[in-house]
């Protein structure tokens, strides 16, 4: 690993106030205004939630999808430190940063979806906490993982503030933090799938399976790589930096390997259970299943050959399509495939969506502020364009 010499991470610099950060700020303020209404009038005041669909996009979008998108840090750290692929090292910090915010916001986002949020601490409190509940497992692991990630990322802040002593102390425990940082997300990303098992026959057979933990875990790792491709391309374009093609091209091949494993498990399970037959029925669920499956297969076509993988546009599109596939799997299994009885329907309200947009805006804004002011992205040889402007 020490054979790989990379450019050190350095702040990108440049102005914090621009069109993107302004739009983010507006979205964030609207989200807070809507949340004030929610805390004043109850969940029904701003959401379309009902007893047939008690979970909407705040749970499925902000937590289930949000945390899967935040798997970049976990996926890349696993590649670098567990599978000893040191060449991907420069990707760790930016990926970890995105994960840090994704998870911290997913954790915070849960609070305003909880109907009795003032009791939230019960979930980790002996006497209340119920280990039989899959949600307990998710909550415990996500809470711990957020803490671990802040510690993993803390050297960036220590470096900036010159706290070498603290930096050294965290550095000595880093191997253990990395170990925890891979096991904890494995546990809760699989459990986000296991949460659906207790729904029983309310969940369509295309998604109700004991393989859900494996399906959710492998897809989350795969999406982790997709997010890194996507983010690296966006960061390169946004900051007018060169794209790290020498890293992203082989990473996309790793992603395809994981994707192959995912598809083998997903379709193997459907065939073994015989549930694949229901995919040929004229139902909304079957249609959405094929949409989901196409999105999972498309990256093979987009990134199938070395020539295609050498094209940054393909990396961006491949990553984005796989992220959409991840969204579809999660929306399908939590909402479309969930049929609780006749007469119930759910589509998110505008205010509900605005809150979710606001949450993503916080992530984007925080990413901009931190990468411009803290050493996260690898140093560029030439002066960053943002600084010259």
């Amino acid at each position, binding site marked *: 690993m020490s054979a790989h010499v990379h*450019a050190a991470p350095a702040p990108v610099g440049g102005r914090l106030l621009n069109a993107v950060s302004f739009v983010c700020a507006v979205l964030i303020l609207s989200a807070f205004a809507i949340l004030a209404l929610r805390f004043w009038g*109850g969940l029904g005041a701003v959401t379309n939630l009902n007893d047939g669909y008690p979970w909407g996009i705040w749970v499925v979008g902000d937590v289930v999808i949000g945390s899967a998108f935040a798997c970049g840090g976990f996926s890349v*750290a696993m590649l670098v430190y567990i599978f000893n692929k040191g060449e991907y090292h420069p990707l760790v910090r930016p990926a970890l940063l995105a994960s840090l915010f994704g998870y911290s916001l997913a954790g915070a986002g849960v609070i305003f979806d909880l109907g009795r949020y003032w009791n939230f601490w019960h*979930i980790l409190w002996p006497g209340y906490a*119920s280990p039989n509940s899959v949600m307990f497992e998710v909550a415990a692991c996500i809470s711990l993982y957020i803490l671990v990630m802040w510690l993993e990322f803390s050297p960036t802040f220590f470096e900036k503030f010159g706290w070498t002593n603290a930096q050294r102390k965290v550095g000595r425990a880093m191997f253990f933090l*990395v170990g925890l940082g891979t096991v904890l997300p494995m546990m809760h990303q699989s459990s986000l799938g296991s949460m659906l098992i*207790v729904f029983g026959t309310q969940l369509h057979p295309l998604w109700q399976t004991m393989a859900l933990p*494996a399906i959710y875990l*492998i897809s989350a790792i795969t999406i982790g790589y997709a997010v890194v491709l996507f983010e690296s391309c966006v960061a390169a374009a946004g900051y007018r930096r060169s794209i790290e093609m020498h890293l992203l091209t082989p990473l996309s091949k790793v992603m395809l390997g994981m994707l192959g494993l995912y598809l083998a498990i997903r379709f193997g399970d459907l065939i073994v259970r015989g549930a694949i037959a229901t995919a040929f029925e004229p139902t909304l669920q079957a249609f959405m299943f094929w949409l989901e499956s196409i999105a999972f297969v498309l990256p093979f076509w987009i990134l199938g050959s070395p020539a295609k993988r050498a094209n940054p546009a393909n990396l961006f599109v491949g990553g984005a399509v796989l992220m959409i596939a991840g969204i579809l799997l999660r929306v399908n299994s939590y909402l479309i495939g969930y049929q609780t009885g006749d007469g119930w329907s759910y589509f998110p309200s505008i205010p509900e969506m605005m809150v979710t947009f606001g949450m993503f805006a916080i992530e984007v804004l925080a990413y901009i502020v931190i990468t411009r002011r803290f050493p996260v992205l690898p140093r560029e040889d030439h002066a960053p364009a943002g600084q010259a402007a």
Partner: protein
Amino acid sequence: MSSRRDFLRCALAGGAAVAGAAASPAAQARGNAEISPDAVGLLFDSTLCIGCKACVAACKTANNLPVDINTTPDSPWDVPLDTTARTFNVIKVYRDGKATLKDAEQGGYAFMKSSCLHCVDPSCVSACPVSAMLKDPVTGIVSYDKDACIGCRYCVAACPFGIPKYDYDSPTGAIGKCELCRHRMQDGHYAACAEVCPTGATLYGKVSDLRAEAQRRLALKAGDTTIFPRGNLTTGDQPSWEGVVPAYVQHVYGEKEVGGTQMMKLAAVPFDKLGHKPLPERSFSSRSETLQHTLYGGLALPVVALGVMTFLAKRNMPKDDESAGQHSDKREGGQ
């Protein structure tokens, strides 16, 4: 090249391990929960229900519940259309065609009670992360504690009967559902719906007694006369009456469904017409908990995984590179 093969091998092994652990019926597998010998419950006989809704009103009074918002706009009194966080019991009607004949599938009508079935192995209790939903080890009543509840609504989503409901119109909304009037039991009372039922369509008692009564009725010949108890079957506190045996569907709904329920139902119209879909005998909570206990029993699997990951991370992390993302050659770095 070899390290890439290593990676793929590791990834495949990891995936296979997860898939294997998830799919195999492991040692920690648990079957359906057993019913307590002193479990209490209800027997609802659709053929005896006259749709008077005395039970709906009594339930509201006994539980001190407000007028519901889920009511028909022009009705002068509280007519809840379904159970909500503020209505724990409703009588629903099945209609077909002109709906003239009681308990006839074609051209007839039939009543059905909708309230908590107090499952022997409840999904809501298994789902609840904070022990707000609990099953009494003796009576088997599934209780709810709003002071423990975090309002996550996992119980609402998990219940196969759609029973626990959340109050979305309150900033401090709670879950609402039937608790079999457990708060009235110390005064010698029992479920208010059964107490007030004029025909014994809703009967309270020990589940063992109720099951025997249900089987007795199914064994009767349609058209014969028989005695129908009222109120509390176990104590026989109310006078019974003689009536004609209806043509029952030969099925006690709740005897086997999702591991059995402590409220059971009899009807003369097929149950799926009365909003009761067929359900498997294996409880969903036993499937979910078997999976969780297989993966996390004694935390063995996570601890082994952590050991392996920590070992690999230690081995692969060079001394000067111990701050995840830290540059491997500091001399070149700096700001």
